[in-house]
Structures are given as C-alpha cells and as structure tokens.
C-alpha cells in the first residue's frame, strides 16, 4: 500500500466546520446519511451539514452512482420540418467532495477508471471523477459479507481516496494520498491541525483484521484459473438455480459499470437520449434484435458476471473487478454469497491441482 504524502489531524468540530465551509462555498458534499425514507436507510447523498452525516453505518447504495448514475441524459433531439437539432448535455459539473467513503467504495473508482479510459475516454465519468475529491474513512464495519482483504484491498486501504481518515483521539488522523487531497487541505487550513494520537490510529487499524478473518486465504487467482478452464461446466447452472435474474447486485456494486443507451420520446419528433445503468443478470441484456440470445439462461449470465469480475477484467485491465464490499451478497434476495462463490471456484481449482501433481521428471 502506497505511503501517505502528508499527515494531518482533524477533530470532529473541525470536520463539521469543513462540511459547512465546503457547502457554503458551493462544493457539493456527498456523505453517508439517513435518507429520511420509510425504512430509515442510510445511503450516500448530498449533505449540507455534518449533523446529517452517519459515519458508523454502511451506506446501502454504491458510491459509483455519483459517477455513473442509474440514468443520465446525453443529448436532446428535436425534429422540425426537415431538419433535426441535437443538443448535447454538458457533462461538466462543479466541485464535489465525498466524505466518509468506505475504502471499498473508493477503491472501486480507480478500478473502473481503467475501462472508462480504454478505447476512448468517457467524458461524463472523468468529468465527475476530476471534479470530485474522495475522503475515505478507515472501516470497522465489516460483516460476514465483506471480503476486501480477500481481493487484495484493506479496510484501511487508501486506493481511490485522496484523503483517508483514521479514527484517532477526539477526531481522525488525516492521511494525504494525492495532490487533489493536499489541495483540499491547503484550501481549508483552518480545519486541519498537526497529526496527533497516531498510536491510537495504529491501534484502531490493528483491530480491523479480526472481523475479516474469514476472508484470509481467499485465493481469487485460483478462482480465475478455474474459470479460464471451465467455460462449460455444471457448476455454473448449479450456481444460477436460485438466482432471480434481477439487477440488484449490479446496481449496488461499486465496480459494475455496464450501461444501455435509450431514446425516450418526449412529444412529437423530440426526446432525450439517455445513458442508463444496465445489468448482465437480466435476460434482455444480451437479447439480439433478431431474437437470438447468446446468454440464453441464468447459468450463462451468472458465469458472465463472475468471469468478468475475476477473469476477464483482470486479464484485460490487470485488476479484479471486485472490491469485496459484499453489497451484492447483502442485496441478493436469493442469498447468493459472492465470497462463497469465489471460495468455491478456488476450491474446485485446488482439487484439480491436487489431482495433477507438478514437478518430477519422467
């Protein structure tokens, strides 16, 4: 894990002050907060005061949605007489700060950056990325669904974060990991003090591993090896039996980034072209106009999702498309447990390795 370029301390009062200052200066502050809905859920949303922020609960929705929204207009079209006018929607937005991101959510951003800047640079995505400073908070909220450590991340990892907060004394140790982060500190010096209580921060970090012990020794590489050798395998349809084929897992995933482009008619010969998040577990995802569907059943679809995350993406972009946040497992109505899936596939590979001993010339 890369080392912080600078250390600071921010106490809770200062943090509150920072939020107000940012909001006051027209910077959108996005943080985990009560959504004031019927079921009292917590999710990332824009806040204007620290009072709304909830730092001790995991947000239900993925931070991703603030970079790749469930729906966003790309352009408006209108036909008058013979000619058509297209009005693109300007993707650029004002400055934003994400406060209290889960490290696994933050870590998802650089992973998705790779595909968004692959064959062409996705302007809406990077427009929002550039405009946003991410302040993550070292996480002690791990539950049985979590396995960030199993995919090479850590509850106190700083990947994707410009600043990382670690609880220390009356506030947080602030670790600076990027120029963007430093810039924020420099812009609001009043709210950042010199680092202190670092040993408490150390102690906090030391305590985080326990809740994740089940993920120790998870071997995604083995899983990848098995996947690459078993495109056709009874394990896939078996895995899919209980799957409802909905998009819940993809929608809450910090790294799932598929989208669909639709034109919505809004009157006579006019409308809006929109980009909507899409999800591979749903039959229509690959349904061809001609009626053929290369992923005709749920087995093929679930294979796609798992393969994409643990074999295809690593192969193409050299990164696992999963941060072990466990949201998909929590969201799944059929109780499909991503950690268990990876563990199982890796296990299958292990069996194979035992059967075929290596070394020893003939």
């Amino acid at each position, binding site marked *: 894990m890369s080392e912080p370029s600078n250390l600071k301390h921010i106490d809770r009062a200062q943090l509150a002050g920072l939020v107000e200052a940012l909001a006051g200066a027209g910077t959108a502050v996005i943080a985990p907060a009560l959504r004031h809905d019927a079921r009292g859920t917590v999710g990332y949303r824009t806040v204007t005061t620290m009072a709304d922020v909830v730092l001790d609960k995991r947000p239900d929705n993925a931070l991703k949605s603030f970079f790749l929204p469930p729906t966003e207009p790309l352009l408006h079209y209108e*036909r*008058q*007489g013979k000619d058509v006018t297209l009005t693109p929607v300007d993707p650029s937005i004002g400055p934003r700060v994400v406060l209290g991101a889960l490290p696994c959510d933050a870590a998802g951003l650089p992973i998705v950056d790779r595909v968004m800047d692959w064959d062409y640079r996705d302007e809406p995505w990077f427009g929002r990325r550039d405009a946003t400073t991410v302040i993550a908070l070292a996480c002690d909220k791990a539950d049985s669904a979590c396995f960030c450590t199993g995919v090479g991340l850590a509850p106190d990892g700083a990947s994707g974060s410009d600043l990382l907060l670690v609880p220390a004394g009356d506030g947080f140790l602030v670790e600076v990991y990027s120029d963007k982060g430093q810039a924020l500190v420099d812009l609001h010096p009043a709210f950042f003090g010199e680092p202190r209580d670092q040993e408490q921060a150390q102690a906090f970090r030391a305590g985080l591993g326990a809740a994740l012990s089940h993920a120790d020794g998870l071997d995604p590489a083995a899983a990848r090896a098995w996947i690459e050798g078993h495109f056709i395998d009874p394990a896939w349809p078996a895995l899919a039996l209980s799957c409802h084929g909905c998009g819940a897992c993809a929608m809450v995933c910090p790294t799932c980034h598929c989208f669909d482009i639709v034109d919505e*008619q809004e*009157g*006579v*010969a006019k409308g809006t072209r929109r980009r909507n998040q899409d999800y591979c577990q749903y039959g229509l995802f690959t349904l061809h106009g001609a*009626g053929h569907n290369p992923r005709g059943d749920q087995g093929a679809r679930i294979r796609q999702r798992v393969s994409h995350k643990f074999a295809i993406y690593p192969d193409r972009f050299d990164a696992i498309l999963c941060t072990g946040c466990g949201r998909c497992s929590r969201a799944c109505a059929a109780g499909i447990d991503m950690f268990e899936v990876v563990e199982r596939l890796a296990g299958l590979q292990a069996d194979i390795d035992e059967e075929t001993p290596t070394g020893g010339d003939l």
Partner: protein
Amino acid sequence: MARIGVFVCHCGENIARTVDCAAVAGSVADHPSVVCSVDYKYMCSDPGQNLVKDAITEHGLDGVVVAACSPHMHLKTFRRAASNAGLNAYLVEMANIREQCAWIHPRTPETTVKATDLVRAMVEKVKQNVPLEPIRIPVTPTALVIGGGIAGIQAALDIAEAGRDVIIVEKEPSLGGHMSQLSETFPTLDCSQCILTPRMVDAYQHPRIKLYTYSEVEKLEGYIGNFEVTIRKKGRSVDIDTCTGCGACMEVCPSKKALDEFDMGLRTRTAVYTPFPQAVPNKPVIDREHCLHYKAEARAIARGKPVKAVCQKCAKACAADAISFDGGDELIKEKVGAVVVATGFQLYSVAKDQPEPYLEGYGEYGYGADPDIVDGLQFERLASASGPTGGKILCPSNGQAPKTIVFIQCTGSRDPAKGIEYCSGVCCMYTAKHAMLYQHSVHGGRAVVFYMDIRATGKGYDAFTRRAAEESGAEYVRGRVSAIYRADGKLVVKGVDTLGGEPMTVQADMVVLATAIRPQPGIKELAQKLSISYDQHGFLNEAHPKLRPVETNTAGIFLAGCSQAPRDIPDSVAMASATAAKVLALFSRSEMEREPQVAKVDQATCSGCFHCERACAYGAVEHLEVKDRRGNVLRVVAQINPGVCQGCGTCAANCPSKSIELDGFTDAQVFASIQALSL
C-alpha cells in the same frame, strides 16, 4: 419515412367561420412527414375528393388526414376516395374540427390552435396506421332453426323459399309447437290447426328443409358463418322411412296410462303414439318411460339381469316391420352458417312445487289442485274440436258444462310476490277469446273475467276485447282474486271489484287461469351451449332492445318468438321473418366482409395468462399450443378469432404485457396521438 397529406375543409362557413383553415393548413405544413397540406371549401364535394385523389398520386402519399366533420359523417367517404386513388382505405383518418371544434368555440386564436392540435394528433396517428384489408369469412349458407313451432316454421320457410338450405331441430315428435294445441286464434277466431297444418306440411315437404323431430341440440361450435352443430336424435324405435303411419301399433299398445302432453294431461295416451292426428311427420314414437318393454329392460339392467323381450305387441302388429327395440339415441353433426332460436314457451304453473327458487305457487287458489281449475292451454284443448271433449267445454271433474266460469288474468304475470313481474302480453287477448268461445259453446252461461288492465295493443285487438265484454256478455271485473276453494260442490271464487269498490264472491263450476308465459325448460342450458345470454327469467337477450331486437350478442345467432319474450302469433311470425331476412343477408355473399378492426395477439410475447379471455364478451379468444419441432407443447398462448372478435379492445387493455394490438386503434396509434395532444 412517411409521406402524409393534410386536407383542411372549410365546410362552407361551418368551420371557416370560427377556425382559420388556411392557418391550420399552413402551420401543419412543416409538421414532420407532412408533404402536402391544403385547405378547401367543401372537401366532401367531388372536386374536394378529387383534390385528395390527385394529391395521393402526385405526392405519393402513404397517409391522409382530412380535417373536417365527424368521422361518423364522412370517414367512409374519404376512405373510398383514397382507395379509388390506390391508397389503402385504412391509411385515411379524419380530424374532427367541426362538431368538436368549430361549432362549439368562438372565433378566437385558441380555436384555431385547437384545430391545429387535433390535425397534428391525427397526422401522428396516421403515421402509425398500416394498410388493412376487410376481413373475409367464408359462409356456410345453411341455417339451423331450433324449434318447430310457428316461429321456427315461418323462419325456415322464408329462408328455404329464398333458396337456402335449412335444418329444423324439434324436440317433440312433431312440428307445430303450442300453436297446434290452440283451438281458435284471436282476433279473427279462425281455426288454429287450419292455418297451421298447411305450413307444417310445406316445411316437411320442402326440398331445402331437413327436419329432425324428436331431436335436440347437443352442442354448437364455431362462429358466424361457420358453426358446427351436434344434434341428438332421440331413439324413436319407429323407423320413420318404412313406417306408413297406419296406427296399428297404437291400437294394440297395452300401456295406456301416459298423460297426453298434447292434451295437457286432460286424457291419457298409449306408449307408442303420435302426439296428434295431424302430426308432421305422422309417424309414431315409442315413449320409453311408459313402454312395457323398455320398463322391463330398465328394471333388468338395474338388477343386472339379462334383457328379455317383453310385450312388443306393436312390433308384431306393424305390417311395415318398422318397429325395432334396438336403436338408441344418435348423434349427428351438421355444418351451418347461422342459427335461429325459436324454442317457444311454457306456462307458469300455480302448483306448490316450482322449478325455480324465486317462483311461488298460488296457495290461495289451492295450488290449482282442483280438477276444474285449468290453465289457458287446457282450456284450449277443451275448446278444440280435436280435444278430449271434441270441442265441447265440459268440467273435467264431472263432464258437465260449466254454468258459471271464471277467468283470472295475470295469474303469475305482473305479480312480483310470485316471482314474475313482467306482463305476458297475450293473456288479455286469449282470455277474451276464451270468454267468446265459452259463450258460443255454453249458451246462457255466465263468464266472469277478473283482470288488472286490458292490454290490447295489436291491430284489431281492442275491438276484439270489446266484443268479448260488450257483445258476448262476459262480465269484466277489474280486480284480483284472493281465494278459490270448493264448497257445496262449487268453486267459490272470492275477489274484489275495485271499480265497484266491493268484495265479490262467484260460485263457479270452472276456473280458467291465464297463467304467465315462461321460457321453455332447459333454455338456460341451451343458451350456454350457444354462448348467448339470458335475463333473470331465462328469456334470451337481444343484442339491442330497440335497434337489434332479433340479433344476439353472438354474431350469427338470431331470436324469434317467445324464446326472447312473451309474443303472440303475429309478433312471433313477424320476428321469424325478420330473422330470415338477417340470415339471408348473411348468406347473400359467399364470404362475409367485416371491418378489420380486430385484435391480434403477439404470440412471441403472450404468456398465456388469458386475462384477455376472461375479458372478452364474445368468446373470441382461443387457446393456441406453441409446439417445438418434435411437436412437444412449449406454451399455450392466446389467439383471437377474427370472425368472432367485435373490436372493442378490452382484451388489449387487459393484457398486462401489451401483447395484444387492436387494428385501427393500436398502442402505437394511441401513443402517437397522446404524444401530439398533451404538449
């Protein structure tokens, strides 16, 4: 890319007075896909229509919108014009800017704006129109007539005379129905048999009429023009072809206790019988309930014993050897294009036991148990020359002529307390007739008629009832009868004279109840077989009480006579001829043409929940099995029979997955109209 033409009509000043037609045409001109937009004084005039035709060829239009009056007025006109110009008629729509715009608004900019909106909406709709062809359904030009009474006979003769084949199904052994039981008929007092029998014979001998007596409709499948009927021919044990009708069998038959249905139980008959001397066909049947052989057979079968031949005197007596005890019922299938239901009526009975829970008998009349309390049809038989008394009106109890006779109208009819609130229509007339017949038969006798109102609306009817009251001297008493009982050998009839304001008691020898007319027993079962509807009394429902009185909601099925409501003979005959006209119109072409406004199912997306079927008033939704190559059923989906569908679109709205489209009003068309109208 659509090419739409818009034609705005001034309708003289009718539209132009408040709508700026030129402005409408102008602003629509640059509406997407509009390639020509003009206004004209009278679009429906010849030059106006030519304007449209020429534009169609000149601009190669694939859609036309005429902005003028209501489509109810001229849509057909412009569709015809378009198809003359080679454009499919169903690519033409009308925007109603007269009745629903020009005529209801002042001359303001808003009015013109609204007119423009209506035109735009229609342009948007017409862009979604697709060429349609009228639906053609082959027609089997054979009519099925259910019921061989006067209505059925009349309908059959009219259709046959026009050169179309007819099949009559009559459940009794003979044609004739109730009319053959009547003595004389009002208002002319001519002999019922004398006018009916020739018709019966005509029907029997007509080369185009096939007659199934002693038969019933078992099942009806298919739809208008293409029905298949299954007929149950009840075993009559007498071969109708070899039988000579000599009657020898009846003379030797020892079983004589069966009540004679034709004579309304006023006498008995043998087990092998023809209902009446003039029966058509005049060939007997064996009534298996009463025949000694069949009774023995039934007993043997019940006891699991072998069946032995018993009696069979008739067979031995039959010179033609026409009687056989082997045959049973026979099921016959026939293809027909139309159905006339003429099943007639039965009389309400005052007895304690009633066929329907909502009906009640007349306890106050001792439930009619007294032999000298008879109903209208029994009186007809007593008055009939062919009846049990040879036309002499005599009391069943003692064979004496009744010195005093009481007629009670509205027995059951118009009496909600007994369950029937409707008027039976014919009772006023036949009671008057009965009173006259009585006076002719029993000179110096006293006839008292209790009535609620006299309803004599037919031609010559009122004069007839007056004759009964004024000339033949029947005492007409306006009032009801509260009790009938026997005392000192007389029937004591206690009633009230509401005009005199006095209770009155009549010591009578005979009482005739003008009991209500009810539909035939089994009518509801038949209606279900034909999938037509009926009211709470079982009378069959017409499609529209005023404008479609002889049609049903099931296309191709028509109603005549008392199956639909109480009717007298003239009305029944008129109705019968009306059904014949409807049937012949249907048969006039080898194919029916119908507006192609019907629903279609997208079988690829239909999930077979059949909400459409539940919502269809016409039973147009069928089940279609989607099979794979090996013929395994993959799914069962809905399919709509265009011959039956009437195009209401209820199924389309009920379809959760929007897998049903209604041609002419498809989702795409409605959607487009909404897009254009709301902004």
